């Protein structure tokens, strides 16, 4: 059963990822990207990690994909992309991907992870929280600082002096 679901999810995820890259229409491309991200959430559900799956859905599908959709809809296509049609680039890309996959696969197979424990209990989100606040607290602090810095940076970049309009003052 899990194998069938895994296969279906894999086909869905990889297929829609290819569609997202190859399709002409940008809107359909971003929809395919959403399906890819949802498929990854499905993988997390299969791995008994509903916490991560729900965050994948709410952050990547709910926010990031919406931002991509928003950008695609509002900005003209020529401003986002400067598309270069080139056969050699495409084949080089496919070759690079194959080489990377082979390399990563060799590393994973060589690392000794060959079997998977299927009956392990569900990942407890409370344990994740405890670990984050105790053992991994430096990582949490660094992440918080990076996020705060990026938010401040975004605010500084987006800031502009508005022309005051007397009619629109609250």
């Amino acid at each position, binding site marked *: 059963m899990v194998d069938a679901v895994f296969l279906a999810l894999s086909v869905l995820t990889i297929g829609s990822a290819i569609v997202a890259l190859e399709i002409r229409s940008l*809107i359909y491309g971003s*929809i395919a990207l*959403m399906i890819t991200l949802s498929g990854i959430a499905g993988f997390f559900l299969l791995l008994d990690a*509903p*916490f991560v799956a*729900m*965050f994948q*859905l*709410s952050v990547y*599908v*709910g*926010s990031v*994909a*919406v931002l991509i*959709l*928003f950008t695609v*809809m509002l900005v003209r296509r020529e401003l986002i992309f400067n598309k270069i049609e080139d056969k050699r680039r495409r084949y080089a890309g496919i070759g690079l991907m194959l080489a990377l996959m082979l390399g990563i696969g060799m590393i994973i197979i060589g690392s000794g992870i060959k079997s998977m424990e299927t009956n392990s209990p*569900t990942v407890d*989100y*409370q344990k994740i929280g405890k670990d984050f606040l105790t053992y991994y607290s430096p990582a949490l602090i660094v992440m918080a600082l990076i996020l705060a810095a990026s938010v401040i940076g975004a605010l500084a970049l987006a800031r502009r002096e508005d022309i005051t309009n007397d009619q*629109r003052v*609250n």
Partner: protein
Amino acid sequence: MSTIAPQFRFSRFVGSLFDIIFWILLLFSLIGLPIVFIILFYIKMPLVNHQLLTPYLAMTWMADPSRTLPIIKTLLHTTFFHVVAFPGFGFAALLAAATIFIERKFLAKIQLRVGPLYCGKVEGILQLMGDGLKLISKEIIIPAKADKPIFWVGPLLFLGTAAAFVSLIPVAPGWVVANPSVGLLAVFATIGFFPIITVLTAWAANNKWTFIGGLRALHQMIAFEIPLILSLLSIVILTGTLNLSQIVESQQHYWWIIFAPISAIVFFICIIAELERVPFDLPEAESEIVAGWLTEFSGMMYGLIQLGTYLKLYAFAGLFTVLFLGGWNGPSVWPPLSPDLITNGITIGPITAKIAGLPLFDQEMLNGTLWFVIKTVGVILVILLPRGVFPRIRIDMLLHTGWYKLIGLAFINIFIALGLLYAGVLGPGGLIQ
């Protein structure tokens, strides 16, 4: 002689009837029966009275009520029944339909109007049925330059997402369709799909009004999603769980609205904004942009979106009840079921057939459902109320409310909750349990 069928002969008519019967029998025995058997092979049949329930046994048991009741009781606890009827779609759709009618009468009374009056003689109670028939019988018009696949799928996706949201709401102890350990996160994940569907359908209709409405909806939903999530964090801090049923169980003695009133207010405002209701109905502002992102929908496609909207309204009101108003908890007001009824059953008719084991639901479930419905209907009425009172606000005021004020207020209640937790008053292992 009729002009529609000039070559009509009665013998041919009878012959064609026999022809149809022959084909039905042939197709059923060749295709229908094998399909039924293949399905029966894969479906896990329940054990009733220590006997595996086969369709033939079920047919014989239909004649005897005392043997039919266990089958019904088994059916009531299947996932199918949960999804289709009671805590799931049927129950929610019934409440949603009632909401549509009550909204019209309620607003009419607020504004000193009459509201629906003629359909069904008594205060227009059949108005809803008439509207439904009208929507079903209307033609579905697709704009010529619309993006057809997305335009067709949009209403279905909207209704499906709303139904997925409904499935997470626990109605009575144990009566919930989906009970994941991360229920609240599942709610956030489900809510996140609405802006995508809205903006995609708005874009697909290829109309400036729908697109303006869709962009407004996107702005509004994204701006109010963040305070919505933040306002619920204080509840998570106080209960220490994300499971909605456990959150209800933690409110046996007091409701969380007592300790998190600011969160409740912020959450309520966010609900109104997410539901696109007055005073935040900018995406559908009918006096500015025709009907916003719903402009191009006609017939049953519009009906599906309306149904989805009201399912979403029920689900949000139910979520408010579950998180802040104690869900199914309440004093036991349902009259106790007499033991005589359970053991001996009731007597029906002149023949006095005694049917044992009749109450299909226990008292706890009925009581819980009653309290849940009362509280949810109350919340729904409070959500409907501003529509009769307030005007629509400007989009810059709306975004200012969402991004500045509500996020700040939500943080205040998070700090209150943290203070209560660290002072040892509330929460896991606190003074008040």
